[in-house]
């Protein structure tokens, strides 16, 4: 069995909205292990807190409960819940990638540079990074005439390909994927699935949420089913 690189233990997340004086439960008591070279898929109904798990691992959300143990390339183990902001930024730069549901990128930046950005951040030369970006965009059949313009005017499917190419380019050790094939046509989705398989074969551990159960069935080495978090009242009883 491949070595575990991520262990999520009892992860929980709720939002405390001060203005409305409300507590919104998002994820509750989630535990699983992710291994190198394997794809772990999160499944469950809408509102089960799937995206919240990914955002908690990436620390876009501050987890409310549990531990997220990550073993880095040097073999050191650290709890992402407690890691410093600089440790998180360094891991994001070197080891952990995130393909979010919607593309967030700098405005006015050429698509080629958006995709090459993770390599720029690692100090790879501009030319080499852009070359690699061009290869990935061709592999995903994004028309070359779009490479020099900003993704701002792109269709949903085109943006998603840019987002995926940027996520794949630095070959992260751990890649978080939030519905990466949802708005792609079947042929493009097929190409993306091929790229995911390739990355997996190179040892990247992946934690993914897929829109189609069929994609989960094809790609997942392990499936983790999440239940919606309990109502606020139960949550409060548990805390008390």
């Amino acid at each position: 069995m491949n070595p575990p690189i991520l262990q999520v233990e009892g992860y929980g997340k709720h939002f405390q909205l001060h203005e409305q004086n409300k507590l919104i439960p998002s994820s509750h008591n989630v535990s699983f292990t992710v291994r190198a070279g394997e794809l772990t898929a999160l499944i469950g109904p809408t509102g089960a807190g799937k995206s919240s798990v990914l955002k908690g691992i990436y620390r876009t959300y501050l987890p409310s409960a549990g531990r997220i143990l990550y073993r880095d390339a040097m073999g050191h183990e650290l709890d992402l819940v407690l890691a410093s902001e600089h440790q998180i930024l360094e891991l994001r730069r070197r080891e952990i990638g995130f393909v979010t549901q919607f593309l967030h990128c700098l405005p006015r930046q050429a698509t080629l540079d958006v995709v090459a950005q993770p390599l720029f951040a690692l100090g790879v030369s501009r030319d080499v990074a852009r070359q690699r970006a061009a290869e990935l965009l061709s592999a995903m059949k994004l028309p070359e005439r779009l490479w020099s313009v900003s993704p701002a005017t792109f269709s949903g499917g085109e943006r998603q390909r840019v987002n995926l190419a940027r996520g794949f380019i630095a070959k992260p050790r751990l890649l978080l994927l939030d519905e990466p094939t949802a708005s792609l046509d079947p042929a493009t989705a097929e190409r993306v699935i091929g790229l995911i398989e390739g990355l997996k074969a190179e040892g990247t551990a992946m934690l993914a949420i897929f829109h189609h159960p069929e994609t989960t069935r094809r790609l997942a080495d392990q499936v983790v089913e999440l239940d919606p978090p309990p109502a606020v009242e139960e949550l409060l009883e548990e805390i008390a």
Partner: protein
Amino acid sequence: MNKILEVRGLSKIYGPGCPQCLESTGPEADTNLCPHCGSVVAIHDVSFDLFEGEILGVMGESGSGKSTVVKTLYFDQAPSSGEAIFFDNDRQYDLFSLNAAQQRWLRNHRFGMVYQNPNLGLNFNISAGGNIAERLLMSDLMDYGAIRERAKALLARTEVLLSRVDDLPKHFSGGMQQRVQIAKALATQPPLLFLDEVTTGLDLSVQARILDLILEIQQELKTAMVVVTHDLGVIRLLTGRAIVMKYGRVIETGLTDQILEDPQHAYTQRLVASAL
């Protein structure tokens, strides 16, 4: 990654100060004005670290003390208490225990500042090129030809028309004045740059190009920056981490995406909700 700046317990009180100042001001008290002695607690107990090549955002509304933070670090104002260590290659400087000459040396050689008001950063009575030359002279470059070449290169880099090198900044547009300020701040290639509301009040299209320029410079030169702004868009675009201030206190600190998507403090939640 190495630390370039360590700020601990930075405080600035305007006025006599009294024992009740601290408990009578801040976000809970909803004021920075002490009702007992009339002092203004501009900032109290501000602490943060800045790493090489990193952009830290300091956000908050007017009166939150965010500008005071960079003004004390750039020696425009002396703090009431607190410590700041600047790490420069192998050397380190305890900023507030340096004498005036040492502080001036750091300002001229190792720090850069871009103010919201170009009046503060530029000498309006000498040409744009002269403003940059002034800073180069202070940093020991003496050859006239070399200074002029370097000034031109900097203005070209910040997209100021070279035909206007010899014009007075007071005849420039607001956006152009900010470009000259940025060129001046970068003249000595400082590892640390302070930016105080640099795009506030400019047209949106001018703002966008100035922000793009700042990002390009950060990527090219790996300059560490402290960016003070009330504009969440600027925070989102430029910074990796941010601190949120209200009435002189830091109420929240975190990764920028976390502050925007999962703000913890009631005030930050209100701020983010009103922007979206």
